[in-house]
């Protein structure tokens, strides 16, 4: 645990808590708009926190709509004095927690609602790879070559990782299988049927080396959290989960040829900053949630965050180390690979981390979890955010 005698935490460390979490019921999502799902999730989070809606004075949201926070606030009848629609892809909600913590600590607001939702499955809006402006850098120098989707760029990274470090298809598959085993312990998970390494490696190839079951789901969904001062949270009913470390950054914007080393990401830097802020080391984390858009994303993040050495992510996840019963609980909800994936999974990382630290996870509970890490990469390996949460 933290050595509080010698560590001087940066100002925001430990100052805010995630007081409420909620999500939309995906089994009832058919036909609903993304906004409706977000609102369901928001109301669930507010109720979970046990606060009055009137306490919310900051709204954070990110969706396809450019005015995400304004739209959500209007729908909920909230007129915030702090607003943020930062969209950096998958980890956006993690970024929002960092921003909320800074704003709350600065006294600009005291209770923030952070929400996300999408209906990409119902809309069939995933993977068409079309809408980029033809004058943009991607429009001129990527799309004409048929590099159209996130999967295409992750495949390039995976191929390089396998070449540089000897990572194998089987090691990629270990991530999918371990995550499915967590999903089997989660009644809310979308995919719970047994999955073997052979199943994953035999699934249809999409873009080498990635196969269908190396890829996250495409579902509808929405999730939300309420963030407030740790002081306020301690007067509420739920066990208190505070933000101990937080960091964000971006190294580029999609463009694959511009990345000097496609086997690593800016998570090296965000992880280091988050751990430094929290005053803890990777070995002290009890449960880890890493955005698993693709199996390779998990392997790269484990290396970048310092849970294993550079290039050792493949062997690290072998023999089901990250599965229930292994010594490294990872993506314990079933992740984007098996739980749900409405397009940007960051908010769901938060939900699971908080629930684990509160001890609410039933069959999939990691015993004695006191420290959790959430990490996501977005805009296809371009953006990063890392959070470290602790049970008060």
């Amino acid at each position, binding site marked *: 645990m933290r050595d509080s005698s010698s560590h001087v935490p940066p100002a925001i460390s430990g100052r805010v808590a995630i007081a409420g979490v909620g999500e939309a019921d995906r089994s009832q999502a058919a036909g609903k708009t993304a906004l409706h799902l977000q609102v369901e999730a928001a109301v669930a989070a507010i109720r979970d926190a046990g606060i009055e809606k009137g306490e919310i004075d900051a709204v954070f949201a990110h969706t396809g709509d450019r005015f995400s926070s304004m739209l959500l606030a209007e729908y909920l009848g909230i007129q915030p004095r702090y607003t943020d629609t930062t969209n950096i892809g998958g980890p956006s909600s993690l970024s929002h927690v960092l921003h909320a913590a800074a704003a709350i600590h600065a006294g600009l607001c005291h209770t923030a609602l952070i929400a996300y939702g999408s209906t990409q499955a119902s809309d069939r809006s995933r*993977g*068409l*790879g*079309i809408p*980029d402006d*033809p*004058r943009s*850098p991607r*429009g*001129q*120098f*990527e*799309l*004409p*070559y*048929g*590099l*159209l*989707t996130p999967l*295409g760029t992750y*495949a*390039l*990274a995976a*191929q*390089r990782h396998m*070449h540089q470090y000897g990572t194998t298809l089987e090691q990629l598959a270990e991530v999918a299988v371990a995550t499915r085993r967590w999903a089997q312990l989660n009644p809310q998970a979308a995919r719970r049927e047994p999955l073997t390494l052979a199943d994953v490696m035999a699934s*249809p*190839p*999409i*873009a*080498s*080396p*990635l196969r269908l079951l190396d890829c996250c789901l495409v579902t509808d969904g929405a999730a939300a959290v309420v963030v407030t001062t740790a002081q306020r949270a301690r007067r509420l009913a739920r066990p208190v989960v505070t933000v101990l470390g937080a960091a964000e950054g971006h190294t580029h914007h999609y*463009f*694959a*040829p*511009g990345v000097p080393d*496609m086997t690593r990401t800016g998570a090296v830097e965000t992880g280091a900053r988050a751990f430094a802020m929290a005053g803890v080391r990777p070995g002290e984390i009890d449960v880890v949630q890493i955005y698993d858009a693709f199996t390779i994303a998990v392997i790269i993040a484990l290396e970048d965050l310092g849970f294993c050495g550079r290039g050792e992510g493949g062997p690290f996840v072998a023999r089901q180390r990250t599965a229930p019963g292994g010594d490294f609980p990872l993506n314990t909800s079933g992740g984007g690979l098996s739980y749900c994936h409405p397009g940007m999974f960051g908010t769901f990382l938060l939900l699971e981390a908080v629930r684990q630290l509160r001890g609410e996870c039933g069959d999939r509970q990691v015993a004695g979890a006191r420290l959790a890490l959430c990490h996501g990469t977005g805009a296809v390996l371009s953006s990063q955010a890392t959070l470290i949460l602790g049970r008060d």
Partner: protein
Amino acid sequence: MEEGVRPLPRPTPETLPYWEGARAGRLRLQRCGQCAAWLFYPRSHCPHCLSDRLTWVDSAGEGVIYTYSVHYRAAHPAFKAALPYVVAVVELSEGVRLLANLPGARPEQVYIGAPVRVCFERLNDEITLPQFQLQSDGGE
């Protein structure tokens, strides 16, 4: 966007020399007139020193494959007919990287480190796409 038409680049003022060069069978790269860095993709200011004194230099047109992937599903209808197709990141001898489809190569011939040479694929009257060929396949 029309179904069968692949996404086409639309040149902008700072990239126009690149596309005009490609139409003429030349791979032109930007080089910063202040710090001498080679730049790709072409832009208005050097991302290293922010100078706008950018010059155009013909690339030697040679490189190696840094990474690649074989696509078995087309995310856009225009690429269906090409399946399976290769997307490769080529590292030029000048140090910058760009994409290529390696026309003429069979997927099983492609490997990281393979030497490649520039060639050109005419898409229409306006746009010719720089491409790269495996040097081992006896291309001209």
